[in-house]
């Protein structure tokens, strides 16, 4: 009995590496510490009431943000491990298998569990406030989305200590990832983790489309909407049409592995190319899903800090919409190369060329907006400038990649790695950080310390170029991606060493950011006006952080930059409070069901990972029961009485 238990445990838990044991210990300790703190301060109820059951978009946004930053940390540690391994030739810090696992988890986490929740965080925090709405269209669904993401990410990350990490690359191409060649549970963790969080993403897409189309303040025509909302609309359109393809790709591969089907196997008539096809139907648009909101953020930041209307609003809108549709139609380029020579996956390829034109329009417009405006040099503007520079450059290397002869030389090399990191870090991450700094005071009611932020900025930026510029050269020198080590006489040593230094500089930058946040929680400048940046859009017309109901009175919108125009006319929402009587406000109820339902999904997923069918069945049954209970629910909203609204506004100094 004991022997069997031992054997089970040694298969179940990942063993053999001191690093893993160390993280096992760390995980246990951190969990105990959290449990202890919550119990000691009697915070369990608070956690359940205020956060786990919340349907408030502002809180959900904050939870997304925390998750995204945690995942940025995990993905970043993965990156540093890889760079440490590659710093010098012939190292044995990581073995080949371990290296495979790490680039797989790094890529997957960064794209699906860092970039996606990060954009969703900003969607949630900014969109309803910018629209003058009291919540998203489907607050309950919003909570489901978050918890599905959360448990999907949890399941994926669990593979680190239980069962073993996936190792098939972030695209997880079959036939390599089919059962015969990849029998471990790692791949199942990948499939189910992504599947569960993917459902949440589709729901978010639907939610925000309806929010934007239906919940705008009176008078806010579509063409008067802030550009960030337009970018969210564009991004969500891509989400709802692209994610089902990922769902199917993962589902079919899962059926192959669990039910012995032959979709992508080499036997039985299967065709692995079909996976690659479906994957890129999603994968290509996915890039735009994460970059479009970053474009929107830049437009907001540039306009606010130049104190000017954005230049070329209509062309901005047009380019967003064009990208969202066109991005869908070019996925095939990912395997044209594939057909020409096996094993090639050119990540952004021609994409950059197509995106080049509308992106050029945007960069031009941003620069024109800043031109002769007196730009205030704050952290959001710093990151904006960094992104414009970096992304323009990344776009150029992209066009180089798109040129077939060059692509032939450098595909699958470090040139490609450098290129897509330039668009993903320089484009997506920099843009999202600009948004983070911009909306931080709105989320938490205080500003982040500028001085520490500038240290973080410079470390991260210089580190970025030190890390990735040498990789372009390495690409030309013939270093291919996904190699875990290289010989000393290849002549790659100095470049690789430099690159690793850059990676660590980015790590230092991240630490500065954490310090900045911790420091500012205590000493940061409080934002008492609700409008710390002299903003232009409606989110700055309410207090920071916004009250539960956002707007005591929903403002009538007349102009594009609604709040700016109100300020010009000497109006404010405080006046509205005096002019109009308070009315009861219709708000959605909190609910624990989204959490419980997603927990059941997690249980089902965990069972399926190990082919424990009973557990999968229990989980799915739980899902079904919670869904029926939801269907039976009839009153999921309440009214905040007018007096209470009045009291709360008075407490905020607005009445």
């Amino acid at each position, binding site marked *: 009995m004991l022997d069997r238990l031992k054997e089970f445990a040694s298969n179940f838990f990942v063993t053999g590496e001191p690093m893993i044991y160390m993280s096992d210990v760390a995980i246990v300790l951190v969990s105990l510490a959290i449990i202890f703190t919550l119990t000691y301060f009697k915070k369990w109820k608070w956690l359940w009431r205020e956060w786990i059951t919340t349907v408030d978009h502002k809180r959900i946004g904050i939870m997304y943000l925390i998750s995204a930053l945690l995942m940025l940390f995990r993905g970043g540690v993965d990156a540093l491990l890889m760079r440490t391994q590659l710093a010098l030739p012939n190292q044995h810090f990581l073995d080949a298998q371990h290296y495979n696992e790490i680039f797989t988890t790094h890529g997957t986490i960064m794209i699906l569990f860092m970039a996606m929740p990060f954009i969703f965080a900003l969607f949630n925090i900014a969109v309803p406030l910018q629209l003058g709405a009291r919540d998203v269209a489907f607050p309950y669904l919003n909570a489901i989305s978050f918890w599905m993401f959360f448990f999907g990410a949890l399941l994926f990350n669990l593979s680190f200590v239980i069962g073993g990490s996936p190792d098939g690359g972030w695209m997880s191409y079959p036939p390599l990832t089919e059962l015969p060649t990849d029998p471990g549970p790692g791949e199942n963790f990948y499939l189910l983790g992504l599947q569960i969080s993917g459902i949440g993403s589709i729901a978010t897409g639907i939610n925000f*489309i309806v929010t934007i*189309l*239906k919940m705008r303040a009176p008078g806010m025509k579509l063409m008067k909407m802030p550009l960030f909302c337009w970018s969210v609309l564009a991004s969500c*359109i891509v989400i709802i*049409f692209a994610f089902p*393809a990922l769902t199917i790709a993962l589902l079919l591969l899962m059926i192959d592995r669990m039910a012995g089907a032959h979709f992508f196997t080499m036997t039985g008539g299967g*065709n692995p*190319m*079909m996976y690659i*096809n*479906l994957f890129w*139907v999603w994968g290509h648009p996915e890039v735009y899903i994460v970059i479009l909101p970053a474009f929107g953020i830049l437009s907001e930041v540039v306009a606010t800090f130049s104190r000017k209307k954005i230049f070329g609003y209509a062309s901005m809108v047009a380019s967003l919409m064009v990208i969202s*549709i066109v991005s*869908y*139609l070019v*996925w*095939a380029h990912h*395997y*044209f190369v*594939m*057909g*020409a020579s096996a094993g090639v996956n050119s990540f952004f390829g021609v994409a950059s060329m197509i995106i080049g034109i509308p992106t050029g329009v945007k960069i031009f417009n941003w620069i024109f907006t800043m031109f002769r405006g007196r730009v205030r040099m704050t952290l959001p503007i710093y990151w904006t400038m960094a992104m414009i520079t970096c992304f323009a450059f990344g776009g150029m290397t992209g066009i180089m990649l798109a040129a077939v002869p060059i692509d032939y030389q450098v595909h699958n090399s470090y040139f490609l790695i450098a290129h897509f990191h330039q668009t993903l870090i320089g484009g997506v991450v920099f843009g999202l950080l600009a948004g983070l700094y911009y909306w931080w005071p709105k989320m938490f009611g205080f500003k982040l310390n500028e001085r520490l932020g500038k240290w973080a900025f410079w470390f991260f930026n210089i580190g970025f170029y030190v890390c990735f510029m040498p990789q372009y050269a390495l690409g030309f020198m013939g270093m291919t991606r996904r190699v875990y080590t290289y010989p000393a006489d290849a002549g790659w040593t100095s470049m690789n060493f430099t690159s690793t230094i850059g990676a660590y500089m980015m790590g230092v930058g991240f630490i500065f950011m954490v310090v900045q946040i911790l420091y500012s929680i205590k000493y940061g400048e409080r934002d008492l006006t609700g409008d710390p940046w002299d903003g232009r859009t409606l989110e700055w017309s309410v207090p920071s952080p916004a009250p539960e109901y956002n707007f005591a009175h929903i403002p009538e919108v007349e102009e594009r930059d609604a709040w700016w125009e109100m300020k010009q006319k000497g109006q404010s929402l405080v006046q509205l409070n005096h002019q109009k009587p308070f009315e009861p406000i219709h708000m959605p109820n909190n609910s624990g069901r989204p959490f419980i339902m997603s927990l059941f999904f997690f249980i089902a997923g965990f069972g399926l990972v190990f082919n424990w069918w009973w557990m999968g069945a229990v989980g799915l049954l739980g899902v079904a029961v919670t869904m029926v209970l939801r269907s039976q629910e009839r009153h999921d909203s309440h009214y905040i009485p007018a007096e209470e609204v009045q009291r709360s506004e008075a407490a905020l100094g607005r009445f």
Partner: protein
Amino acid sequence: MSQPTMNGNKAPHVPMKNLVGFLLSLILTFAALGLGLAHVMSFGMVMFIILILAVLQIVVQLYFFMHFTESDGPRYHIIGLAIAVFFVICIIGGSIWAMTFNSQAL
């Protein structure tokens, strides 16, 4: 009191529209089936016509059953559906085309 309908009149008491829709859908189905069994045309031609009949079925369902012209505001759902149909055609067409391309190249 009976509920108001889209045109503000009282709803009719015989569901004519639904009946017509049902009849049409049956006709379309059996037309497709008959064509499939008849073996009078080439495979490509038959498939082409069957697909057209299927598309007509969509229209029947949308118009006669799903009230898809109804809305309380701009008809965004029609735009959404149109994009979806377009993308589905792209996915199916693109996949088939690309897969044949690949099997030739390999």
